[in-house]
């Protein structure tokens, strides 16, 4: 897949010589499920409150919750669509965010260790998270929503490339 599959994100977050790999769309399902865990009980609570209270204006609360849910349903796919990574010869690029965008460049030679995480929900959806760590705690290079085999491949690749370009601190 190439950047054609992504919503149009212009310079500077789309260097021309880079082929972005988007993360799995399954992440949308996973994130919406997590959101549903919060929104649905909230909605039920609001509806129950409105019925018990009896006043007409109380129905604005469930309406607000529904709006919130709709906003999340609209936002999450876009968020996931903006998340992508690219492997270059010497470094890994990770991009995310729509409102506040960021693009992180992590040189392989700076990689200290790589984490692969998959919680119960993520496993259900068949995705995993790869997090790269350098000696700088500020390096926030996590790639969420990778298919497990891709996560494993990336991990091994990072490890081998990191070794080849090993540097101290």
């Amino acid at each position, binding site marked *: 897949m190439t950047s054609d599959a992504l919503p149009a994100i212009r310079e500077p977050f789309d260097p021309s010589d880079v082929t972005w790999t988007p993360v799995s769309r399954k992440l949308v399902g996973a994130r919406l499920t997590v959101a549903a865990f919060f929104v649905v009980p909230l909605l039920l609570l609001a509806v129950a409150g409105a019925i018990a209270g009896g006043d007409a204006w109380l129905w604005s609360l469930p309406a607000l919750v529904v709006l919130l849910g709709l906003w999340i349903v609209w936002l999450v796919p876009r968020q996931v669509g903006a998340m992508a990574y690219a492997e270059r010869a010497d470094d890994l690029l990770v991009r995310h965010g729509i409102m*506040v965008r960021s693009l992180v460049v992590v040189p392989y030679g700076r990689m200290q260790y790589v984490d692969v995480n998959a919680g119960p929900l993520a496993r259900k959806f068949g995705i995993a998270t790869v997090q790269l760590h350098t000696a700088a705690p500020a390096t926030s290079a996590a790639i969420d929503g990778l298919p497990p085999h891709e996560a494993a491949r990336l991990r091994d690749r990072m490890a081998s490339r990191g070794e080849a370009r090993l*540097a101290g601190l």
Partner: protein
Amino acid sequence: MTEQLPGTHVPPVEHEPVGGPDAITGWRRMHPVTPALKGWRILAVVVGVVVIQSENLRDAIDLRHGKTWLALIGAIVVVAIVGFAYSSLAWRVTRFAVTDEAVHLRTGLLFRQQRQARLDRLQAVDVVQPLLARLVGLSELKIETAGGDGSGVSLAFLREADAEVLRSELLALAAGLRRPTGAPAAPLSGQGAVADVDPGSSTLPDALPAHAPFDAAPEREVYELPMPRLVVATLRSGAVPVLVLVAAGLVTAAALSGDIGVIFVMLPAVFGGAAFVWNRVNQGANFRAAISPDGIRLRHGLTENRAQTVPPGRVQAIRLSQTPLWRGKDWWRVEINVAGYGQGNEAQRDTVLHPVATRGEAMTALWLVLPDLGVEDPVALVDAALDSSGNDAGFTGAPRSARWVDPVGWRRHGFRVTDRALVTRSGRFWRQIDVVPHERTQSLAIEQGALQRRLGLASFVLHSTPGPVAPRVRHLAAEVAAELLDEQSARARTARATATPEQWMRAVGVPTPADRSGSAPPAGPVEPGPPGPSA
């Protein structure tokens, strides 16, 4: 290890790379007085907790004097005995060894721990003397590695002279020098070997061991901080001036109204301010910096003496900063990132390269870290970085549209790339410049908020190891930021490829064991000034 051990029954291969813990010989103990010094700590903690926890204790004491006092004193004595007993037992099981490759430390009474710190990963070596230890002539040797908080090895306590010898030895080994073949690890006077303690060894003369395998590297002092400047500067920094003004105002108000109660409102803030001033003065007192082949030497401290050594190439980034009230005097605070020092309160003390530098001293401090800034006229560059704004002096500043997001300081945001380092500039009233050598770049990023996108701006972020320096150029034109990101990652890559190896002496072809006979190694290639005093 003492003088008896080596020579006859220790084969010369002893200091070759070792296989496992069993292969390590030469375990040594800390100084026998250690438990006495550490026991007080336990007592102090317990007493402190009791005093803080029990408001009612004082009432109880007031009520009936005699017996409560006795009980209290008894309790303190019991705690003291337990504390000292524990410390003594802990001392008995604590031992350390230095091989060519690593420092090994075994500790733990109930939970045994053996820690091994590789010397080529060493980030800094500190000799620390708390007040009590200084009185009895002992020091703590701390070896910092880059593993985050609590990752270093602390050898407490050693005789002052022994700590110095051990420091020279560790630094020489870390630099890639090798012990003269067959020579023992630096023997420590007055400390028994673990296995076969010779009763005579603890009564040996106090002198430096005559055959220490490594001489202390010669050093040349480069600057010193006069006490008056430190005090005045501290009073002019942070919130102290505001605090003083508010306090003066309140005292006046109290005097005029005759109501003293107002003053008490200020007490917590005054205590906070006093603690801040005291900490800064205490830590920065007698601040001296020197350069030696081993790296940068920093000595400071009023109650607690610290002598830090940061080997070449261990400084990850450097920051010069100035508060508004320092502007008139042109004073700068110089801080550095060193991977071993981490973050937090302790780091604030350890990561200061100069507490209050004049401009000239700030230049020197920068030179200590980066002898070659990668430009023809480094002084002009630094002057420009400190004073300039906009696109002056080779700097690339923020575009005019940045005034909408940062109306005050937008002209000061900027950067300049030299052959060796990235120099970033920011702050109009709280001025600041950060310098990061290209080969020390960890990772890079650009960030863009919604408003910034509207204005076509983006911020450039450079990630360094934990510490006070976090370089960031805000509100650059988006294309400029993207270009900088690309170029900077390329520069960092090439710089890494040619960077000095971790064992810094290896870079200059200092003789290694193959081509050297048994004499002590020379101090090194960096122009050594007259050998300075080492304490």
